[in-house]
């Protein structure tokens, strides 16, 4: 909640800062779009503000760093309390007499195992105690184990640090809060701060160092690049097979009544079936090896490419076909010189979608079962609560998916410059 509020306020503050601060100082380019007065509602006049993009990315990393106690972040959210603290409880014996004793609490980082501090027992019927607890965790202190007056005899805690307390109530002390359980034991919770523990969200530097480690030493028997490479290899092979079969199939469906009639029910049925739903069947049929993965990705790409090719054929302006025929083209020449080039833009769009779907599907399939691959890496890491590997894997999967899309867009621009120009 606090993070959302912070994020929103950075969003708004950044807007005003850039709008009325930076942009005022900078000379803006006076191109055509900048002269438009009607911009609200004119989508073509909406261009991404690069300042906003930069601030947006920086904000994410800043919040990530601040709330995980990163060494790289200049500011931090309140950290959990670590160290020794003391609190005093007042014990009331059955006869009504009271005595104070001190509990010394050593709060340590999660995963460490320090020794309990040494304390003297002190005087009176209540004796001093020493306890250890992990940061932010709750510790139940059976304070009366060493006391002369026991709870089972009717002794009870009446105050903590001088603040009166009864069963079920809680009071705060210098470094956290204290409550009494139903049976009268003291429960101490040292302040947890507002930072995430590494097990939920590790700081960025841990993710980076994990990246360095895995890219050199590997994880689960395979180098990081092998994991990613296998995932990419499966996507590319599956996609290529899907395209090799799907594009001719789509052309046939766009050119022949019989093919259209025969494959329409199949394609229309398979299209809405998410490839993920095929994973169990593919595992039953082909196991969890490469063959199964590639069959799955082939199926994921096949229908998309077939539909794209079919749409490409039906998108051919009939006057182009007529023109080609009356210029003496044969059916084969029409195919080669008119239908194929005219459908390329559609096929590229389909290929972009198919590559995206394949990338998502391969990761999902590796999550289910695989010996290597990006998905397998994060799945296994999550079983061992290695959140830094999981986060690193997600980031790399995102970067690669984005990279694939950018490459496809570049290929599209250079190979089909006539897209959208007819």
């Amino acid at each position, binding site marked *: 909640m606090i993070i959302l509020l912070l994020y929103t306020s950075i969003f708004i503050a950044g807007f005003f800062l850039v709008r009325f601060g930076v942009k005022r100082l900078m000379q803006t380019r006076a191109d055509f779009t900048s002269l438009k007065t009607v911009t609200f509602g004119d989508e073509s006049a909406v261009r991404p503000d690069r300042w906003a993009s930069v601030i947006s990315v920086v904000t994410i990393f800043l919040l990530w760093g601040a709330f995980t106690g990163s060494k790289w972040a200049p500011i931090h959210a309140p950290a959990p309390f670590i160290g020794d603290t003391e609190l005093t409880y007042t014990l009331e014996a059955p006869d009504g007499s009271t005595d104070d004793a001190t509990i010394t609490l050593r709060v340590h980082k999660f995963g460490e195992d320090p020794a309990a501090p040494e304390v003297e027992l002190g005087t009176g019927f209540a004796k001093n105690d020493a306890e250890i607890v992990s940061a932010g965790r709750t510790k139940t202190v059976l304070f009366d184990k060493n006391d002369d007056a026991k709870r089972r005899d009717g002794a009870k805690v009446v105050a903590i640090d001088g603040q009166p307390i009864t069963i079920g109530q809680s009071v705060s002390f210098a470094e956290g809060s204290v409550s009494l359980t139903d049976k009268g034991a003291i429960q101490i919770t040292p302040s947890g701060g507002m930072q995430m523990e590494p097990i939920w969200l590790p700081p960025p530097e841990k993710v980076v160092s994990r990246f360095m480690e895995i890219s050199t030493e590997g994880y689960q028997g395979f180098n990081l690049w092998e994991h990613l490479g296998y995932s990419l290899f499966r996507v590319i092979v599956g996609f290529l097979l899907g395209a090799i079969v799907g594009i001719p199939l789509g052309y046939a469906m766009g050119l022949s009544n019989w093919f259209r009639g025969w494959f329409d029910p199949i394609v229309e049925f398979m299209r809405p079936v998410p490839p993920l739903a095929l994973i169990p069947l593919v595992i039953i049929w082909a196991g969890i090896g490469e063959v199964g993965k590639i069959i799955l990705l082939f199926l994921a790409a096949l229908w998309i490419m077939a539909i794209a090719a079919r749409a490409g054929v039906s998108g051919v302006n009939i*006057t182009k076909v*007529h023109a080609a025929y009356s*210029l003496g083209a044969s059916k084969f*020449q029409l195919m080669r*010189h008119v239908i194929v080039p005219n459908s390329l833009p559609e096929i590229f769009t389909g290929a972009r979608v198919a590559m995206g779907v394949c990338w998502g599907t391969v990761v999902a399939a590796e999550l289910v079962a695989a010996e290597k691959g990006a998905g397998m890496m994060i799945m296994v890491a999550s079983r061992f609560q290695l959140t830094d590997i999981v986060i690193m894997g997600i980031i790399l999967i995102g970067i690669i998916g984005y990279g694939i899309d950018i490459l496809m867009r570049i290929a599209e621009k250079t190979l089909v*410059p006539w897209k959208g*120009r007819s």
Partner: protein
Amino acid sequence: MSTLSIDKISMRFDLPNGSHVQALKDISLEIKTGELMSVLGPSGCGKTTLLNIVAGFLAPTQGTMTLNNHLITGPDAERGMVFQQGALFEWMSVRENVSFGPRMKGQREAEWRDNVDHLLDIVGLRDFKEKSVFELSGGMQQRVALARCLANDPDVILMDEPLGALDALTREKMQGLVLKLWKETGKTIILITHSVEEALLLGERLLVLAPRPGRIHREYRLPFADMGVGQDLREVKKHPEFGEKREEILSMIWDMEEEIMGNAAEASA
């Protein structure tokens, strides 16, 4: 002597709702080599259907057509077509578009290069031959379409409102170009238009079609195309006879349109 003869062509097809449309009825025509014929008529009179039948894209339900004494059964390079727009191949340069016909015949570049360059000169696109067609203006694109059709050396050129999508000024220039090409190449040209002026300027013969069913309403023989070859088209338009004919045909088509509207009103009433 190559002659296009159209013998009692009728076109009738069923609609999904069970009724049928008589698009054309008993159209007979004889067009000699080198004739320039324009076809005019109110919308829905079947002009484009007729042209598509002659081009071989549609089969008539009755009647036959012959060109040079052989039967027309489908599209063929002997009948070139110029469309209103969208018929150029965007993935080819201007030169590749114009040389499409010869290349499909399997000619080598050496065989067609001179002719294609010559045609690009005629249509004034010499400097644009390596450009992509989507970089050209609408008028330039239609000039490419004309050159592409001529490069294939067809016996008959069919034009389906080739200048319909152009602005008035470009259109006038293009009308001059069509006349010039007609005179220089001596091709038989059938031109469909919905502009009365264009039909008068670009027609030795002018055919007026009547709708429902599409049929030949009247035929004119006009001197303006020949006049236009020698002089400015605007001068031709000032000719008193040009004005008379224009008014006559306009009111003829106007009456037809009125009749259609009246029938439609009755039908809906």
